[in-house]
């Protein structure tokens, strides 16, 4: 899967590396701004209130 991705990237090794880093950066950004906040709304990791 990741091997296929590496082969699908164009250019010499350093271009592929840069592209890969850019892809990872985009993935992290989307995770941090969209995916993780969304996931968090489903899992309550902490409860700080007392209730019946």
């Amino acid at each position: 899967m990741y091997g296929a991705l590496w082969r699908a990237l164009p250019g010499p090794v350093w271009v592929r590396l840069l592209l890969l880093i850019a892809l990872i950066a985009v993935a992290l950004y989307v995770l941090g701004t969209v995916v993780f906040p969304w996931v968090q709304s489903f899992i309550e990791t902490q409860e700080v209130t007392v209730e019946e």
Partner: protein
Amino acid sequence: MLPSSPTAPAVRRRGNARKPAPRVTVVGVIGELLVTGGVLVLLFLVWQLWLNDAVLRAEQDSKAAQLSESWEAGVPEVAEESADPVVPVLLAEPDDAEVFGILRVPRFGADYAAQLAGGVSTSRTLNPLGLGHYPGTQMPGELGNFAVAGHRNSHGKPLNAIGELHVGDAIIVEVPEGWYTYRFRTLEYVEPSGVGVLNPVPQVDAVEASDSIITLTSCNPAFSTAERIIAYGALESWTPRAAGPPASLTETMEG
């Protein structure tokens, strides 16, 4: 991730001049998906416990500071009627997610400031704003119990150091009209259903309150949902805005 995978054909090791493209196998893809899933879980934890926490802490700090400044600037409107240094101003109960005050605790840091808002809903108050006031409990300065909940870890963790309070530590509630200074008395640990801590006289039913206290609730142990940690404080004094910030705000901490 590098292209070599454990499932790549052994042929690759021999021919290094021209590598044949490794086959994509079902097992290989499943393995990579599992590894990816693990990495995502770790990233989520890093995001929640440090990154998002730090972002929210900074956001809440700057909002609290702005709020405090705007109250300072608006002194004249409220100074007249509330200049009584003995009788504290009583606020009306805030709406859900309405910020009405700032909690300051020198033990938590000289510049510690956490917003106080109405309600204890995680999605509307505790996660985005900071501390939440239990609806139905009393307001600061009132006879009875001013009960507040807040995160101990993540989401800016306003009550992170709740377990480190010392007897006599100042717990200050700042509102537009002035400052209520409470003194920390004791900690208590209860079951998640221990709503007795919210009574006007904590843990006692149907008794008329004769003291003004503050109650802070958070999770215990840290990172857990098993129990709740409760911190109680008793009202010591009221300082109207016109009299300037109380000395309790700048207490130095030793020990």
